[in-house]
């Protein structure tokens, strides 16, 4: 066995922690690495030095480029040694150093020699190293050996080639795809792991060919796959096939279900679990199909292995969201898991029970949870709080005991996130369960009496200002609010002043008393607090006379701002002090998603206190500036909306063109963003010829050509159309790029004098109804909906025909309308049969529009939709229906 690397006798005797790497230092080790260059190599010593280098790398020590190169070159010398152990360390070292392309050349020949060696260990490892560091050009040279290696009789060699193939497929798919025959042969291998790796590679080679995947799965599910890992893979592929073929089967039988069920009786636990999980995740799984899977998972619940218990309870927890009744059989096992040593398991068990529990078991469950809460970490408590919130929404009659529970835990110790989760839950319960309102508000009031978190205090104060005045006895909250003015920091004090003013504005009976309190706030030490108090006193008529507060004053003070805050911030930053006052009406209202940045994962939902989603930075400003700088377009008025760029060319064509549609009140401007991807060409006088014969209401008024378009530097050309004012005219335009092309000498970069006129066909462009609607979110849809009133409400129902899924139908309608989904309702939970989606927007002419969509599955695939529109204008409500009807 390897020797201790550093011998320090005195260290060994001491009781202090001994490490062979004690006092190791990069500089010294790099010095030591010179032994690699010795003419007479000492394999053992070299091995030790490599281990030290690996140790340093592993500890996160950074090597500079020069150091890494130096080490790499000296390591390559070690290929001279025939020592097996040393060679093995060399392989690991080369992989760790991940050399650059010009360095790779140094070791290529040595590795290729090893790849054809008689020693299996050399072959396997050389393949792995070479494939890790190689690029495409070298790959064609070694392809022949790799193909041979795949069918090598030694499973280690074969696996090494297959796994390398899986990695290479990401970078050089066209080469790896040629290996299909060999890989196919390897799938039949007797060695378990080879079969697994071969199956993984074969599937990835064929993944875009649905028919081939189908064939692969159906042949293998009948045959015998030996390796449990390969069997798990096969289960995953099978469920993918089931998912994709779901549309074609009319009969009740699900293809391959028998295979999945058969896997539940496999001897390997990982296969049993994989199959059980696959069954629970089937689209629209029936309870008959679920039962066998639930049964094996139930057995896992009482396993002695924590991993099995965790896996089972986590899966059942998910099932409980969609099929609570199917999981009830496991309730007894679940209850015993509440006392599980592993708190993750216990938490999952609790939340599952909360989902499956019925009304009568709630009280008993709450008792168990109370004991449980004291000994788990905050993050688990949050999970439990959220589960309790859902439970309360499910059984509103139980709100008393659940609300009590929440207020009790609110009083206990806990971090910010935990407290926030509780407060959010109480707020949601107050909103959705009217009977819980008064007790809930009092709980919150008590909480702010002793709350260390400014954020929560201000949010609760804000919420009290909205809900408090509507209660039967608003005066009882005043004391709690006014206490804040005495006891808290400036932020909370300012919040409290606003809340007091809200009570004053909404409840006339309280006005005189509120004014007294507000006047005292005029002596506050903080500017903001005093300013607020002064503002409210003046606008609400605090000069003695108790008058009814006008609706416009209320709207001014407490109405929601219909402008995204980021846009306001940007406009304020851009505002230059001048004679002209800042006009809030010129702030763009669009919540603009950044067109260039890739789409972000769906963000977290605004919860509880109704925080509006943070709008991404606006590009509207940039467009507006650009357009107003062009004299032809300067008299078009205020830009209403700019669309996201629409690609008019395929990816990777000679000229890449996309278009942004700018909508004005009576004009439309198309901004064509062009990129020339040919280095040998210079384009001049670039215009787009637009044929609007299929867009009758539009007439071209101006165009602005692009003088010159050199290689790889994007430029814009514009075309403007006139259209009837305020009318959402739609139409289709065909586009032709016209330009003068000049040859460029790539070496000098100079263009020839003479050019040739040329044209390039672009794809058609459509102006659709959604272009006339701005995505403008509202923070509280329900309030907005109610305050809009039913005067111009239009309700109608539509059949959307067969759809792949509910989610697909929801997205189609959202895209069609081009409106902003509110409160995260664009997300459809899997397997649900119905969904409600809330949208808001501003229609051209600055008319606010709110839309409530209710979707339901009607029959196996048919989606039906009920569309309710409220807006400030009757014609706009009708127009929205028109869009859907003709869409």
């Amino acid at each position, binding site marked *: 066995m390897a020797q201790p690397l550093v011998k320090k006798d005195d260290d060994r005797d001491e009781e202090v922690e001994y490490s062979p790497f004690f006092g190791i230092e990069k500089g010294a080790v790099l010095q030591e690495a010179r032994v690699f260059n010795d003419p007479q190599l000492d394999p053992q010593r070299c091995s030790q030095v490599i281990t030290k280098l690996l140790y340093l790398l592993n500890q996160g020590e950074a090597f500079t480029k020069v150091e890494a190169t130096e080490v790499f070159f000296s390591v390559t010398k070690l290929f001279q040694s025939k020592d097996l152990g040393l060679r093995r360390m060399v392989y690991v070292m080369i992989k760790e150093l991940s050399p650059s392309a010009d360095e790779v050349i140094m070791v290529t020949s040595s590795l290729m020699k090893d790849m054809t060696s008689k020693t299996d260990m050399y072959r396997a490892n050389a393949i792995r190293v070479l494939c890790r560091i190689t690029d495409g050009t070298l790959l064609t040279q070694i392809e022949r050996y790799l193909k041979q290696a795949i069918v090598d009789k030694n499973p280690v060699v074969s696996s090494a080639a297959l796994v390398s193939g899986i990695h290479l497929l990401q970078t050089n798919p066209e080469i790896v795809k040629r290996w299909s025959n060999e890989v196919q042969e390897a799938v039949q291998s007797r060695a378990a792991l080879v079969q697994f790796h071969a199956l993984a590679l074969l599937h990835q080679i064929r993944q875009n060919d649905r028919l081939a995947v189908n064939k692969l799965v159906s042949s293998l599910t009948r045959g015998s796959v030996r390796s449990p*890992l390969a069997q798990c893979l096969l289960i995953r592929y099978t469920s993918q096939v089931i998912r994709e073929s779901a549309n074609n089967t009319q009969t009740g039988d699900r293809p391959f279900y028998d295979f999945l069920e058969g896997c539940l009786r496999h001897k390997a636990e990982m296969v049993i679990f994989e199959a059980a999980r696959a069954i629970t995740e089937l689209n629209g799984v029936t309870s008959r199909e679920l039962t066998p899977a639930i049964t094996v998972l139930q057995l896992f619940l009482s396993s002695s292995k924590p991993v099995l218990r965790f896996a089972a309870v986590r899966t059942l927890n998910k099932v409980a969201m969609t099929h609570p009744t199917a999981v009830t059989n496991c309730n007894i096992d679940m209850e015993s898991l509440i006392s599980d040593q592993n708190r993750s398991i216990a938490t999952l068990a609790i939340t599952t029970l909360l989902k499956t529990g019925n009304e009568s078991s709630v009280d008993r469950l709450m008792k168990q949870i109370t004991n449980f809460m004291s000994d788990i970490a905050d993050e688990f408590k949050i999970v439990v709080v959220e589960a309790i919130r859902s439970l309360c929404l499910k059984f509103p009659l139980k709100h008393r005991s659940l609300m009590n529970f929440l207020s009790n835990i609110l009083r206990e110790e806990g971090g910010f996130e935990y407290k926030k989760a509780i407060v959010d839950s109480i707020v949601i319960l107050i909103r959705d369960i009217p009977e819980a309102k008064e007790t809930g508000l009092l709980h919150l009031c008590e909480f702010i009496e002793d709350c260390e978190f400014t954020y929560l205090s201000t949010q609760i104060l804000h919420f009290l200002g909205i809900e408090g005045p509507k209660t039967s006895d608003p005066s009882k909250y005043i004391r709690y609010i006014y206490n804040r003015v005495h006891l808290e920091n400036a932020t909370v004090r300012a919040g409290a002043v606003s809340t007091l003013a809200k009570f004053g504005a909404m409840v006339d009976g309280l006005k005189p008393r509120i004014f007294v309190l507000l006047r005292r706030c005029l002596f506050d030490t903080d500017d903001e607090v005093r300013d607020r108090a002064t503002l409210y006193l003046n606008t609400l008529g605090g000069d003695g006379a108790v008058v009814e507060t006008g609706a416009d004053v209320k709207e001014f003070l407490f109405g929601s701002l219909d402008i995204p805050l980021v846009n306001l911030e940007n406009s304020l930053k851009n505002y230059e002090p001048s004679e002209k006052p800042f006009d809030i009406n010129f702030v763009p209202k669009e919540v603009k998603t950044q067109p260039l940045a890739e789409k972000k994962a769906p963000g977290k939902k605004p919860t509880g206190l109704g925080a509006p989603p943070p709008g991404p930075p606006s590009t509207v400003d940039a467009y507006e500036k650009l357009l107003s700088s062009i004299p032809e377009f300067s008299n078009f008025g205020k830009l209403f909306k700019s669309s996201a760029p629409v690609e008019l060319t395929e990816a990777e064509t000679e000229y890449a063109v996309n278009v942004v549609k700018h909508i004005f009140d009576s004009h439309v401007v198309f901004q064509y963003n062009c990129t020339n991807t040919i280095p040998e060409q210079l384009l001049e006088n670039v215009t787009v010829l637009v044929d609007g014969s299929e867009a009758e209401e539009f007439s071209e008024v101006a165009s602005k050509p692009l003088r010159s378009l050199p290689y790889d530097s994007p430029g814009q050309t514009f075309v403007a159309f006139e259209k009837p004012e305020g009318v959402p005219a739609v139409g289709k335009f065909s586009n032709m790029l016209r330009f003068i092309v000049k040859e460029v000498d790539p070496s000098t970069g100079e263009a020839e004098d003479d050019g040739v006129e040329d044209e390039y066909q672009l794809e058609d462009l459509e102006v659709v109804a959604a272009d006339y609607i701005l995505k403008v979110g509202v923070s509280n849809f329900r309030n907005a909906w109610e305050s809009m009133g039913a005067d111009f409400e239009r309700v109608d129902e539509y059949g959307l025909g067969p759809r792949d899924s509910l989610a697909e139908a929801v997205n189609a309608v959202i895209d069609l309308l081009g409106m902003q989904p509110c409160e995260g309702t664009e997300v459809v939970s899997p397997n649900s049969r119905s969904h409600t989606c809330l949208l808001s927007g501003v229609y051209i002419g600055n008319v606010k529009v709110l839309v409530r969509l209710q979707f339901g599955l*009607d029959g196996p695939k048919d989606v039906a939709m009920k569309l309710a529109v409220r807006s400030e204008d009757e014609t706009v409500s009708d127009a929205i229906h028109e869009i859907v009807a003709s869409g």
Partner: protein
Amino acid sequence: MFEQWIENAANFHKRRSGFQKGSVFNPTGYSQEVPPNRNPIVSEKILPSEKKKMDLCPLVKNILLLDSEGKRVAVKYYSDDWPTNSAKEAFEKAVFTKTQKTSARNEAEITMFDNYVVVYKFVQDLHFFVTGGENENEIILASVLQGFFDAVGLILRGSVDKREVLENLDLIFLCLDEIVDGGIVLETDADVIAGKVASHSMDDGAPFSEQTITQALATARERLTRSLLT
């Protein structure tokens, strides 16, 4: 795209009866659906699109071997989720503190945080961890952990502690190299892993024959104790 549904009474009744009871037309007009849970344990995060190609293959994100103070002994990352050394250290610290108080000496334990599943096992002053994505099959991860754990036991002939590991760190690195390649499981059978690692160290130091006999004996003893224990 949509055929407008002609509004006539007869049709309306037919259609309406097709809906599930109370599912679509709810009078309050508000979604009764419970807001999706944001908690890490049950959330369903969509996998990043670049991983799409590989997402069906079981993947290991990292294998960690830490000491009883959470310090790195040997670690291997197979994913870009932690691009810098400080990100890696932060993850190790989080994993260590989170699992520190649990007893994972008999059976492998499991936990979940930050959308990762972590299986772990402790022996002496060493903490073994294997991390996978949140949708990974827990039992596959556990088998990787068991393979690593047992292989280290075989390589060190049963005396597994930090000092032994550090003194044979070269073999531990080789061991990690043999278990997972770029996130893909290479081998989970401890005997095979240890065999591959040991075959490389054969030529080290001790005479060939002697080495193999000791090794054979050690392996046999190890196997026997294991079969007796289980």
